[in-house]
Structure formats: C-alpha cells, structure tokens
C-alpha cells in the first residue's frame, strides 16, 4: 500500500507538486494521468525516495520513506522514465548486479535473474551489451530490474513511451500479468492506455489532483454525457431550483467562480439531448441572467484535455 499525504515539491518558487494526497491500496493497479510537466515523474521520484519532498510524507506499507528509507525501498520496484541501464554491461551482468544491490541471497540470485528474464522475454539478449539493444528491449530490461527481488509494489513511469505499437501491446500484456500479484502505480499521458489496465485513475495537472475515480466512472462522466459549461449571475439556491425543473440534467458540477456574483458550473446530460434552450427559459423564469454558455467537447481525449487545461488557465 502506498499512502501519499500532502506532498509538496518546490523548485525555487515553482511548485512542481502541490499538496498531493492519495492512497494506492494493496493489489490495485492505479494509473497516474497528466500532460507532460504535470508532476507525475516528480511524484514518483518522491514516492521511491529518489528525491526528498519539500513537505509531506510518503508511507510504503506503513513505513515512512523519510524515516526508514532503506526498509521502505525494499518493497518497491521502480522503472523510471529513462530506464537506468549501464550501457557497458551485458544484460545478465546488469540484472545480476541489480539482484545483488537489492540484497537477494547469493543462492537465489541466479534463479531470480533467470526467472525475470523469462518473464520479460529478455533471455535471448542476455549476453548482449545493453548499449546494443533496441528501445523495446531496453524498456524490458528496465522492467526486469524493477521486478527483481519480487517487490510488492511496482512503480512504472511511462513504461510504453517511445515503443512501437506491437511492443506497447506486449508491455501492456506484461503489466496485466504482473497486476495479478503486485500493487502497481503506473503513469502515462495517454488516456486509453491507462484505462485499459487500471482499476483506478488519478488525473493530475500542474502538481494538483483534479480527478480520482475508476475508469468506468470517468468514462461515464466524460463519454456518455454531454457537458454544458455555464456562468450564471444569481444566488446559488435560486439557480439550483431552476435547474431542478429540467429533468434531463444528470449531474451538476460547481466549478470555482471567477466573477463576483456569478456562478460557474458544468451540467451534464445524456449525449443526444440538447437542453440549452430549456436552460435559457428556466433561468429567464427565475430572473438569473446567463453570462456564458457553451457545449463541452466530450471525446475521452478531449475531456481529459479539458480537465487538465481548465486547471491550467
């Protein structure tokens, strides 16, 4: 189990990660989604103890990373964005080094290396220099290194980036296989990829969490409904009453208000309905002028972009 509480990382005045809190339960596969520069890698680096947070705590199976780093790190296998490979070692040498680094007993080392090479299908290249491997194989050797010592928790930073489509499918399959026996936190900036393998998705942008739900719920919210963004002047209770009259409205989400006296909100309806006129008349009836109204794009990718870009503005 990974518990992240109020995590902050500041570089000068810029907060790369800003008061982030979440929990990854044992056995779950959680996707970490966000555009480039959202703070995904920084967060992962803090969870694995590579960099120290400015504020906040990371608990790995209840062990505080800053208090007992060596003990906490024993349970984690980490595949960073760029696999940390020594170009001048052979694959087997490298994995043997990692096994020793992770303090596997001498007797088990060879077997463990053999098994992980088998699982990640890197046996064919075991005697090749890492420098001469293709990107896909490098990624797999990195994954093999993370898996060595069978840690309970795997943290994978964009494991499929830079791979060709068939390699992506292979890695995805491997992750699915691993998810049976591991807790996995996996990051990506591609929505489909994450929703294909994850039990839960955390969307972050500019270091802040903007959504955390199961892929089904997120997809439901994003795909099957149509969002209308509204800015209406008036009291919240009045507007609520007006909206209640429109039966087609499924969900109302109040956003942060930008203007004084006005209320920002997004209302969702079934995809094939257009209730803009109904909203207009309802609001007119209750004497609440509509300042802004526009339809939101609702493809999965667009919804994700809308979510992340809205935060950014």
């Amino acid at each position, binding site marked *: 189990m990974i518990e992240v509480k109020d995590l902050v990382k500041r570089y000068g005045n810029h907060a790369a990660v800003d008061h982030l809190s979440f929990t990854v339960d044992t056995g779950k596969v959680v996707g970490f989604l966000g555009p480039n520069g959202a703070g995904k890698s920084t967060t992962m680096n803090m969870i694995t103890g590579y960099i120290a947070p*400015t504020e906040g705590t990371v608990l790995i199976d209840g062990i505080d990373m800053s208090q007992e780093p*060596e003990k906490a790190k024993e349970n984690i296998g980490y595949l960073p964005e760029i696999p*940390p*490979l*020594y*170009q001048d070692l052979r694959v087997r040498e490298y994995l043997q*080094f990692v096994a020793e*680094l992770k303090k596997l007993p001498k007797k088990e080392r060879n077997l463990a290396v053999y098994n992980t090479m088998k699982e990640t299908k890197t046996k064919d290249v075991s005697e090749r220099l890492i420098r001469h491997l293709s990107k896909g194989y490098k990624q797999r050797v990195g994954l093999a*290194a993370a898996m060595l010592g069978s840690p309970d928790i795997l943290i994978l930073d964009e494991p499929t980036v830079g791979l060709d489509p068939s390699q992506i499918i292979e890695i995805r399959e491997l992750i699915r296989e691993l998810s049976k026996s591991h807790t996995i936190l996996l990051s990506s900036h591609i929505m489909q990829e994450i929703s294909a393998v994850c039990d839960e998705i955390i969307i972050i942008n500019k270091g802040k969490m903007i959504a955390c739900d199961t892929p089904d719920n997120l997809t439901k919210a994003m795909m099957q409904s149509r969002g209308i963004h509204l800015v209406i002047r008036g009291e919240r209770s009045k507007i609520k009453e007006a909206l209640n009259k429109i039966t087609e409205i499924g969900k109302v989400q109040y956003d942060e208000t930008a203007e004084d006296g006005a209320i920002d909100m997004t209302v969702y309806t079934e995809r094939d309905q257009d209730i803009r006129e109904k909203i207009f008349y309802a609001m007119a009836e209750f004497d609440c002028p509509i300042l802004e109204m526009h339809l939101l794009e609702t493809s999965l990718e667009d919804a994700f972009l809308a979510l992340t870009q809205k935060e950014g503005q």
Partner: protein
Amino acid sequence: MLAIYKKELRQYFSSMIGFVFLAFFLVIIGIYTWAYNLSGGIGNFEETLGSISFLFVILIPILTMRIVAEENHQKTNQLLYTAPVSITKIILGKFFAVVSLFGIGILVICLYPLILNMYGTDVRLSLAYSSIIGFFLLGTACIAIGMFISSLTESQVIAAVGSFITLLLMYLLSNLTSLIPTDALTQCGLTAIIWLAIAAITYSLMHNPTVSVLLGVIGEAVIWILYFVKSSLYESLLNNILNVLAISTKFDDFSLGILNYDTIVYYLSFAFVFVFLTIQTIKKKRFS
C-alpha cells in the same frame, strides 16, 4: 556495498579506462625507474617515486571523472538511490573500487625494489616500501578529491578538468604560498578576502541572506579587531593554513624514507573528509 564495488571494477575493465590507467601509470613509473635506478645507477627507489608525485595530477582525474558524474548523466543514479542501500554504502563501494584499481598498479610497483635488489647492493627495501605506502596514501587522498568533484557535475569532462585544476593547484600550492608576503597586513587583508568568499559560498548554498551577511560581517569584524589588538598573530598565518592543503609536499617525508604517522593520519583524514563531502553533496541534491 560489495555489489557496487564489483560493478565499478567490472565497468573499469569493460570500458578500457582501467587498462588505460594501469598502462599509463606503469609506463611513466617504468620510464622513471629506468632513468633513475637502472640507467642512473641509483639504488634509491624512494627518490624515483618522490620525483613523480606530479603523476597524480594527470592520472587521478582520468580515474575519477566518471565515478559519480556519469551516473548523474545517464540517470542510473535512479537505480542506486532507490535501491535499499544507503548512499554512504554506495559511495564507499565506489571509492574502494577506484582505490583497488589504483592498488593493482601499486602492487605491480611493489616488485620493482625487489628486482633492483637482485642487481644492486645499496637498495634499501624498508625505505623503498615506506615510500610506496606514502605514494599509495597520497593517491587515495587524490582519489577522494576527484570523486568529490565528480559528484558536483553531470559532465565527465567538467569533472576531469575540475579535478585536474584542483589537484594542480594543490600540487603548486607550496610554491604559490611562498610568493605571498608574510607581513601581518597583507596576510590579514587576504584572510579578509577569503572570508568574504566563504560568506558568498554559504549564500549560494543556503539562499539565506541574513545568515550569510551576519556571517560575513561578524567574521570580518573579528578578523580586523584581532589585527588591531594583536597583529603579530597574522604573520604567515595564511601560509600555514594554505600549506595544510598542499598534499604533495607532505609526501617529501616519504621520499626521504621517513614513515611519519602524522602524515599517514593526514592523508587518511583528507580522504575521509572528501568522501564525507561527496556523500553530503549527493544527499543535499535530493532536496534541491
């Protein structure tokens, strides 16, 4: 620690640096041994070593440039620092790997006095070996300095040039300090300037203007008050301080055949301080 140690040694020999270092090291010492002992007909191996302590200025940067900088550059430090091993152990493993590689060269040199002894009568083995011990310790201290500089950067080239300049300055330091006038005013002025530099460095490390300004002002006040109260205190003070850093002059004892415990402790503490600084640099980087 052992894992890192073995990996480093393996990398030294798979990337040729290990062989290049040993070859260069042995060739230079071989030439000097030939010139002094074989061709010159002198039985004192300690004099040979004494005259080539400059070797470290060139050789140690080659050996230490990649040790931490390359890990920073290739991001392989992510593997090391997220493994269940403390940073202290990682750095010690690396340090001992370089020292061992250097030790291989020293072991070969250990044969030279024996070879000379086979053909000459005035070869004093105890002197020769005490100077080899000193030579080894001097090299170890230089390795620690090189490793520290390597930990400050991501570039092997900068690490190599930085170590080269630092070691060269340390090598030339005793000559340079003899040029500084030893009168109290000059010495006091220079001490004041150096203190300002120290205050500036603390600012760049801590980004805390209050502390740095206080440090600077109080330090300067103390320096100048002391000067007016008792100026004799400053006579050749700076020279004495700087000479502590002139590590190669300490080797003179060894080349005279004196196995001086002070110097052994001096070299070992020098190495210790720089290994410690390396560890602290890496720990600090995690927070920035």
